[in-house]
């Protein structure tokens, strides 16, 4: 069970306030005097007697079942190497993708020759973490569902992975207009949902850009990102012109919106 001790930011070297008899967990260590000291910047949390610090910044660590967004970094033999901004290396096996024709069969050598048609170098894709290797050093991805696959008609926003919590739906639609995919690795795809690749209409584009700008600002303001929060921030900043959105004044306002709650 997770108990937040106090929502006080701790810095590396700060003593984490905790009851006596606690044990140091990740993000902490015990000094000579026996105090538990943080070695990252973040918010402390307690799991039974274990004191941990959830770091605010840092690399994504893959977990099975997470939705992530990645970029193909290498096309290899029967698999793609995918960059998901994690400390681990991610791979997508040829056998763990959906064929465009939709048939289920064992992948032949013919398919290997067509790998670049499915995903080419530098393509962005959404996928799910299927499994981790035993030492946790490698990640296997899968796109065996129609909702995963190559991304188009939109733009990528990279935020801190710690701000994207697990949510019920990682694929969501805001105001029935703009679609968002929240990758747990902090990569967020904001797009116009259409089966074809086309020139995004200006009104939709303005909304996509507006939401992306808000995401960048929320990342700066260290606000937890969720569809409800984006909706709230979106409504409270709707009076600001799109061109003036990326400014320090908006950042202050987003911080205020977050502090009220």
């Amino acid at each position: 069970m997770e108990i937040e001790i106090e929502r006080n930011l701790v810095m590396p070297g700060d003593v984490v306030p905790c009851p006596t008899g606690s044990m140091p967990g990740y993000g902490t260590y015990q000094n000579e005097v026996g105090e538990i000291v943080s070695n990252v910047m973040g918010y402390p949390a307690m799991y039974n007697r274990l004191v941990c610090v959830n770091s605010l910044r840092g690399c994504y660590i893959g977990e099975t079942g997470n939705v992530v967004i990645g970029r193909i970094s290498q096309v290899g033999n029967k698999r793609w190497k995918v960059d998901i901004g994690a400390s681990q290396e991610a791979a997508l096996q040829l056998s763990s993708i959906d064929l465009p024709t939709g048939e289920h069969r064992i992948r032949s050598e013919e398919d290997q020759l067509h790998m670049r048609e499915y995903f080419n170098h530098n393509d962005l894709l959404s996928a799910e973490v299927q499994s981790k290797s035993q030492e946790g050093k490698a990640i296997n991805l899968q796109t065996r569902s129609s909702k995963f696959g190559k991304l188009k008609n939109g733009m990528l926003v990279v935020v801190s992975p710690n701000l994207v919590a697990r949510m019920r739906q990682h694929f969501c639609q805001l105001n029935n207009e703009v679609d968002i995919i929240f990758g747990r690795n902090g990569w967020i795809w904001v797009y116009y949902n259409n089966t074809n690749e086309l020139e995004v209409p200006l009104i939709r584009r303005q909304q996509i850009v507006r939401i992306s700008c808000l995401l960048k600002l929320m990342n700066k303001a260290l606000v937890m990102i969720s569809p409800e929060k984006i909706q709230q921030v979106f409504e409270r900043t709707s009076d600001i012109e799109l061109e003036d959105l990326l400014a320090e004044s908006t950042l202050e306002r987003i911080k205020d919106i977050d502090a009220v709650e």
Partner: protein
Amino acid sequence: MQSEKKFITDGIKQNCRCDGRGILSSRRIKIEKGVCTLSPGSAQLNIELSSPHIICGCKLEIGVPEVEDEGIVNLSIELAGKSLMTDKERMAEVKSLIEMLMLNYFNKKQLCIIPGRKCWKLFIDVEILDKDASNLIEHISLTITSALEDVKVLATEGIVNKNTKEEYIEILDGTVRINIDELPIITTVAQINTSSVLDLTAEEEGCADSLLHFSIDKNGTIKGIIKENPGRLAVDQVLSAANIAKEVAAHIFSDLGTGSIKYKLS
């Protein structure tokens, strides 16, 4: 990658870029002078809402001139925390561009102390702090200009003893400023799908067909043009880009003193 490129170029066609700007407006940049206490002149350039971008420090020492009555200017540009070969090559390119377009027009005669014997050696060190810094040429030129404005040189007088031919450098009271009235700044106008775009972000730079660097001085005279990237340009495209660059330069020169620059052309 292709779909992202398409999204960006379509946005430029529709005059709505990925950070909400129109194609002819810039991000707000802030330039702070005198950030390094140990250097006689320094400046730091930040872009609003992003990490520190570029820092520039100047250093002066006395040396022997290479040309009879001129001083020596030495530029170095480095990318912090990176040592990839491609980055180093890029930095060498940027350095030669800045030298060609900007420092060639620096009045080196003012650095002379005793003609042929002693002169000031001016070292300009630029460090790029942001890992995906963009619109580098323009921003570096602005940082260097601000740093040079900040430089205070000890007032000196060179004396040569007529009989013994010995040289003395006498240090006078007070300091002098470097004269940079003739020094141009560089503005970059990019061409993406035949539209002129100002102040590119790193993603947009990947889509640019061609980048035109104009070096323009205070009076609005164009002193040099260099083109990067393999795109093709029509003559009237170059002319319209030149007009845009002139307008931008006028905006920059009027705002440079305030330390906060944001331009938007209609």
